[in-house]
């Protein structure tokens, strides 16, 4: 019987990976912080940043699925660096030393550069180089991805999976980077034509399970996106399912970008970080199509849960307990 360690098993994606692997007959050991619930066969409690914990966690497993990360939007850089970058490097090193056969690192689409609007981006395209402007989370995920790819270059049996905008019951894709209610209207800081690279949590979990099991996936990176949904189409579907009555209003983003630039300069003079950066607005103006052909061809992956069904599950109000 195959055994797998799943880090971040109590998290949104981690829990789906655990359920998926167990459904496939894999015995799952979960690395979780003390006190966190998870549906695995075996628990291993501790901190990702603790090498002793990692060494204990990887001992005797066939696969390591690394879905654990610090995902908050705020906090000191050191914490992102140690949890997301250093722990990834250490986990891979220790897993290789322990003779683990397959390691899947869960990365993010945010690692890719989107050089212009309507760009077509595939796995071998360049990394983003936005640096500090990207925010600590995105920057740390970029460095973690680079660490995983560096391990591949050293011959480690690593696969990198880069999912799109993760969503599912309990986590709705946001309607916009920022939004504000204005009576019957809702101001959405987004471009109506922007393409949301939606990735339903169960579809991503399936891709990860396929990547772990497929011999072809060793040393490969895979983009996982179900659907590129236009922002305006998503907002319309959102209203339809939730019964929301507001009407979407999209501000002229070039003006917003100018505003963000000025804001950023002002805050910089005051020695502080602006609440919204020009880089963030740039990204809402620049959407891309992320090619998933490689996952389809090499893993046989298909987003099995159709997007309309996945969004219905995600957006429908929770049934009231009887």
């Amino acid at each position: 019987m195959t055994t797998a360690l799943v880090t971040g098993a109590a998290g949104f994606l981690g829990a789906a990976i655990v359920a998926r692997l167990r459904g496939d007959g894999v015995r799952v050991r979960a690395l979780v912080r003390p006190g966190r619930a998870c549906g695995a066969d075996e628990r291993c409690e501790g901190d990702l940043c603790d090498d002793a914990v990692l060494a204990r966690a990887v001992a005797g497993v066939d696969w390591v699925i690394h879905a654990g990360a610090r995902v908050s939007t705020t906090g000191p850089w050191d914490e992102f660096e140690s949890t997301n970058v250093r722990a990834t490097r250490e986990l891979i090193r220790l897993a290789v030393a322990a003779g683990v056969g397959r390691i899947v690192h869960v990365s993010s689409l945010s690692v890719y550069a989107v050089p212009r609007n309507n760009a077509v981006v595939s796995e071998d395209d360049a990394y983003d180089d936005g640096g500090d402007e990207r925010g600590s989370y995105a920057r740390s995920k970029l460095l973690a991805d680079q660490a995983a790819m560096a391990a591949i270059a050293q011959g480690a049996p690593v696969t990198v999976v880069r999912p799109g905008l993760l969503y599912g019951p309990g986590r709705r894709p946001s309607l916009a980077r920022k939004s504000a209610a204005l009576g019957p209207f809702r101001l959405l800081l987004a471009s109506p034509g922007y393409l949301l690279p939606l990735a339903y949590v169960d579809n991503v979990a399936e891709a990860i399970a396929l990547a772990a099991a497929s011999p072809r996936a060793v040393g490969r990176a895979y983009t996982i996106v179900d659907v590129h949904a236009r922002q305006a189409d998503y907002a319309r579907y959102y209203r339809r399912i939730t019964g929301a009555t507001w009407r979407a209003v999209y501000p002229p983003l070039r003006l917003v970008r100018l505003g963000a630039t000025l804001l950023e300069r002002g805050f910089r003079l005051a020695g502080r970080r602006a609440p919204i950066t020009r880089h963030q607005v740039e990204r809402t103006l620049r959407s891309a199509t992320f090619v998933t052909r490689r996952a389809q061809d090499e893993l046989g992956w298909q987003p099995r849960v159709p997007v309309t069904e996945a969004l219905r599950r995600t957006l429908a109000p929770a049934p009231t307990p009887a």
Partner: protein
Amino acid sequence: MTAPIRVGLLGCGRIARVHVAYLRDLPQVELIGICDTDAGARGAFALESGLAEFASLGDLLDSGRPDVVHVLTPPATHAPLALELLRAGINVLVEKPLALKTADAEQVIAAARKAGRWVTVDHNRWFDPVIQEAARALERGVLGDLVGVEVFQGAEAGEADKALAANQHWSARLPGGVLNNLASHPLYLMRRFAGPARALRVVTRRSSHGHIEEVRLIADGERALGTVTMSLRAQPFMNRLTLLGSAASIEVNLNNMTLITRRPRQLPKLIGKVWPNLNEAAQLMTATARNALAYAIGRQRFYPGIGAHLQELYAQVAAGGEPPVSAAEGLDVVAWYDEILAHGRSVAPAEALAS
């Protein structure tokens, strides 16, 4: 009121959006949903259109229970999908061409006959308003006897090169290359006006890639001689139809949706050099102004022929009649294209050098 005609769509590409937009205008049609094996394309279109998505053809048939399915997928899949649908007892509209090979088209037609269902092809340009205007003029006798039909089909600059270079778009991988994607239009237009052909002559020239890029086809039609010119490289690209009549002739510019009628006039020699040009200019000005106004007020949309075709098709079907484009017409277009490929091979420069 009779039950609505339940229509489903296979294929979620660009043309599916056009079909949905026009189908929504038809009161006798109920759109039941869309289907595509590419979940990404299907999902994006489902969110955009608000239509139900079916992950497989089986799902579409079982859950959607369509009366008619539009096959809007790449050409290589037209015949296999049409066969599957007809065998399941569903009526079928296929985007052009009906099939890639004559034998496949014949098989589709046989399956339709056997199932007691209809199959039709979206020969949309026949229904373009400007082509219909020419057809009405011919019918009214404005042209006198029809003696010749000339159709010119061009391609946008770089369209062929781009598809070939990337080899990405499905059109680059069709038999004969990108030409295949354009060839239906001039062939069915010529057949409509000149009639079914009793004999064909074809000469072609290929590019260094081996793709056919120049075609001259002459048909001995039942009503008139027809000629088709296809040129992938001539620029600026034109799509033109000329009807030569014993009393007058008509020239249609399909790109700009204009029509000029030329009539012989007994004029003094000097005026005779000036008047026809002024007359043509006036006709062009009028048609251009009319088109601009029609677009501005939303009376004219893109692919008007698809809208008019679907309107006529469903009016006929609702009344128990036959589709306005016969399967035989679809078959002829496929057979003529096969003929072009066969002749193309005999003059391919690469092969000529090798022999």
